[in-house]
């Protein structure tokens, strides 16, 4: 059984008792979504915790039947994306351009799993760094689709539900996003640079993330 079904039942029966389990099950993915959309760890932490608090307040006002019908994964993703979009506007206000290099080097990356040698680990860390930086250069709506579909691992249907766009739009955005990521990574490799330099890179797309607006 989908663990979220049991979780929804728990939340419907007793929100205060069920909520810590919701936090345990979803905090990391909401943090991941926020960080991959925004690129700034401190902002991502605040977005993730605010999303969880919003979720609690919303659930507090829902009838049990409505909670039982919720698809928690896309529902929580929608809350996170909306908060990240608002946060992104504020970030754009306070810093006209984000220098990615130092942020990417400042500990964004997950702890290495211990099964492979240091050379392979270093290469995988480099790949992640490049990919995280490349994601931030996608337009916000394409980035949101790619992050939900492939970083968070939602299905096309769940991604479409979370972004409130048709499934066809999701497919097109993800396709476009993956193609751009590939082009971007190839270009970086052709330049021979395996480390993005903050100074040499264009600023990420400053527009807000729009989830309502179908672009295909």
């Amino acid at each position, binding site marked *: 059984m989908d663990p979220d079904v049991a979780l929804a039942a728990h939340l419907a029966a007793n929100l*205060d008792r069920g*909520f*810590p389990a919701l*936090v*345990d099950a979803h*905090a*990391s*993915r*909401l*943090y*991941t979504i926020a*960080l*991959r959309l925004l690129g700034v*760890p401190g902002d991502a*932490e605040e977005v*993730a*915790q*605010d999303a*969880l*608090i919003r979720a*609690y*307040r919303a659930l507090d006002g829902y009838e049990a039947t409505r909670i039982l019908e919720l698809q928690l994964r896309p529902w929580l993703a929608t809350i996170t994306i909306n908060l990240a979009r608002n946060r992104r506007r504020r970030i754009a206000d306070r810093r006209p351009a984000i220098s990615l290099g130092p942020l990417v080097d400042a500990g*964004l*990356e*997950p*702890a290495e799993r211990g099964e492979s040698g240091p050379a392979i680990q270093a*290469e*995988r860390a*480099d*790949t*992640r760094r*490049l*990919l*995280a930086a490349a*994601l931030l250069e996608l337009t916000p709506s394409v980035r949101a689709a*790619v992050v939900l579909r*492939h*970083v*968070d*691992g939602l299905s096309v249907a769940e991604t479409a539900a979370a972004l409130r766009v048709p499934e066809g739009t999701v497919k097109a955005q993800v396709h476009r996003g*993956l193609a751009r*990521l*590939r082009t971007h*990574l*190839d270009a*970086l*490799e052709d330049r021979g640079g*395996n480390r993005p330099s903050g100074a040499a890179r264009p600023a990420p797309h400053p527009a807000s993330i729009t989830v309502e607006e179908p672009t295909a």
Partner: protein
Amino acid sequence: MTILTSHDAGLDLETALRELALTAPATVRARALIGVGLADAWATLPSPLGPIAVVWNGRGVSWIDRADDPAALEERFGVRVGRSLTRTVAVPDRLARAVESRLAGNRRIRIPLDLRGRTPFEVAVWMKALEIPRGEVRPYGWIAAEIGHPRAVRAVGSALAHNPVPLVVPCHRVVRSDGSIGQYSLGGPAAKRTILAAEGLATDDLEATGRAGVRYLGSATTRIVCLPTCHHARRITERHRRPFASMPAALAAGYRACRSCRPASGSAAAA
């Protein structure tokens, strides 16, 4: 370095994206639980009693206590409230300013309080205590009468003893009808005297007045009778001050009750 250059680059890219998933820092979980009121945070603020522990969550201030023994504080809170408590660096700015302003005597400043699980009677007692101005005191019976339970004087004392947010809800401004200071949860009668003195109340005078049998003070010019610490009573000049032992005595002498301190409230219980 090779990045995703094999013929199945599509699959590799998707795998690489999946590896961008991270574990949230522990602060996310802790702050989310505090934000919804399923856990609490604490830090100290200055007070007339020295640094005090202010405990809060996303719903408001939930507890105020002595800060001298953090381990004992966290255990007390766990036993009484049943939630986990984490120490943090500082009370959030807005809350700190509000509490400091309240302690300085501003009764209008809004401080959100988390009083979940308390009885409506307790909350009524605490909200009534909030109406007592800084530098004044009221008898337990006054609170009982004002909240419509004139006979529940003992229950009022018990509710005040269980006030989770002393200082913010000024239970120290409630004393015995004879002017003696009475008990205080946050460090006993000595602490209560310290706070009242810091608010400008001469507790020795209050107790002396009570021992002399005086429960009310009237003004011979206005013919209005007050509780002894009412700001109107304190403006009466010595020459025109008329002491009374009971409200019936004051009323018989042609005095009417002050509308500000409402001395008739609880006068039967106090008699």
